[in-house]
């Protein structure tokens, strides 16, 4: 499962390969607080990259910068070689970056299917006039969107929950639903923010299986996770943030031994990481 593609930050994996996402010396200040300091990262196509670090290290902040919810104080972020700084979140989503949220962000009152339909929003065009006139084109588009949504629901194993209100799902399935909604945008890069938080062992196994199979189909993943065994088992490369700084980067076996990483996590036990969620 490890590294279906050899990871070569210097590009030796192939002469013409360019990183899918490149974070270049990005800093983010909240008032006086430096949430991220000069962070550089590269994510290669087909990779599962792990991003770990103690609470408050800046992981979610980095996600928010990549998806355009926040803007960096300095530095650049490039997706497929093109700077995405300053683009609104919906434009970045349209480029092919999808995400899930650490604090599950569902749409109250909407069913599981409707969540995935919203995920498919960017693949259809019909607007207000189409809705009011219910033109053949609109209806055709809607049928296509539904077919795609059902395919996604089956893919992640939520089909039998389709008509349930999303908030009635157990947390484990809510997190899967967030992945399904992101998947429906048909992204090239998925950012998963602690998808395993609050899940039991069985749910975590199911989640790991899903991420692995998505990756096997070519999905690139950036995974923030506090569950070390989960992230070590999935990622082919791990980056470690501490107090906003990138303190280590490399294959899981190496990261596990890295004295700086051990120091950063010193005094923290697995349960603490698991329990403590922002």
């Amino acid at each position: 499962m490890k590294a279906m593609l050899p990871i070569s930050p210097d590009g030796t994996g192939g002469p013409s390969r360019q990183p899918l996402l490149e974070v270049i010396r990005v800093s983010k200040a909240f008032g006086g607080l430096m949430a991220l300091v000069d962070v550089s990262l590269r994510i290669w196509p087909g990779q599962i990259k792990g991003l770990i670090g103690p609470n408050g290290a800046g992981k979610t902040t980095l996600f928010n910068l990549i998806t355009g919810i926040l803007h960096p104080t300095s530095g650049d972020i490039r997706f497929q070689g093109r700077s995405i700084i300053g683009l609104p979140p919906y434009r970045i989503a349209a480029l092919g970056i999808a995400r899930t949220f650490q604090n599950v962000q569902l749409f109250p009152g909407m069913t599981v299917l409707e969540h995935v339909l919203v995920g498919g929003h960017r693949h259809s065009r019909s607007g207000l006039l189409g809705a009011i006139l219910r033109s053949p084109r609109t209806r055709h588009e809607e049928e296509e969107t539904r077919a795609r949504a059902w395919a996604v629901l089956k893919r992640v194993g939520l089909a039998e929950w389709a008509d349930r209100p999303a908030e009635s799902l157990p947390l484990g399935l809510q997190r899967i639903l967030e992945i399904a909604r992101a998947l429906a945008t048909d992204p090239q890069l998925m950012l998963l923010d602690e998808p395993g938080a609050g899940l039991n062992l069985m749910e975590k196994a199911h989640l790991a299986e899903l991420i692995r199979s998505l990756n096997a189909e070519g999905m690139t993943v950036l995974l923030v996770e506090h569950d070390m065994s989960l992230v070590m088992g999935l990622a082919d490369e791990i980056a470690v943030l501490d107090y906003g700084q990138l303190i280590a980067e490399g294959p899981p076996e190496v990261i596990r031994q890295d004295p700086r990483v051990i120091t950063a996590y010193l005094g923290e036990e697995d349960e603490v990481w698991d329990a403590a969620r922002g």
Partner: protein
Amino acid sequence: MGRTGFPSNVIGFAIGVPLILAIGMLEALRPMGLSLPALTGGLLTLDTMIRVGLFTIILVGLNLLMGYAGQVSLGQAAFYGMGAFFSAILTVRARTLSIPPALAETWWWPWVVMGMGALLVGMAAYGIGRPILRLRGHYLAMATLGLGIVVYILLRENMGLPHLNLTGGFDGIQGIPRLRLGGFLLWPAWRYYFLVWLFAFGAIALGLRVVHSRVGRALRAIHGSEIAAESVGVEVPHYKAMIFGLSAAMAALAGSLYAHFQTTVIPATFGFGPSLELVVMSAVGGMTSIWGAPFGALTILLVQEALRTQLHRVLPNAQGEFEAIAFGLILVLIMMFLPDGLTVGGLRWLQSRPRLHIRFARRSFKPG
């Protein structure tokens, strides 16, 4: 939602349309001295029913904006007023504006003005909505409230151009012509009633179509989580402004219809109080339901009417303030016991009674 919503909407039209038709026929024919007021103990008049129809048009828009998209507007009466004054000015003041009488005196001119008014007000609201709707919660409430006050003052102060006297200031504009279809005058009132309700049912149908579409889904998603909606590619600023524009256009249309009904418009009809009243109607009917619109309007108009005519029987010395106090009390009670409004709350109550354990999520969006 699209599938579950369909039958209930059919039922809505199947009951609503014949009922409205029957009331209109009753008033048109007045068979054997029967009339709407006679049958309802003086509570309902044709005039009230026309107003319910007008407010329904506004409320469908307001429900889309507030109930579905989750964006508050405390200035909706401004758009209502803009439509009303647009129609009034372009028909009554045609000469001042150098519109040739050959044009202004045709039967179709008021209809063209009505369409133009709705379109222009909708577009203006879209433009204003882009920046304003970045605000959330209380800030948005304050901004729309401010917008409403600005429009009201512009109407009252002749838009700062007293020499033209376009809006007529405090006194507004009188002598607005009645609508005609070719040679057919849409008057007496029962004829106009049919016209207004044609538009009202059109508004309901339009609202339902929007709700059960990709656009409606996006709006509800924005309501639920703006960040999540935006992260899957929903163009949030555009959608918010678009629904703001649509709701404004609908209010403007109702305003034009009001102007040709009342034949007189004054700024006070479109101030802050009326904006608030619209929000109350929307909440009482049920913001998260398109069908709530006529019920909200009817309930509030009836309560106001009943208070005005009946309160002195209970409290002989009651003044206007007592009306306001009683009105407020009734609202508090409705909001306490039916927080989702009459339609959604009422449906839920019905469903909870005969051991039909259909669980509703709180703040659920029941279609229809």
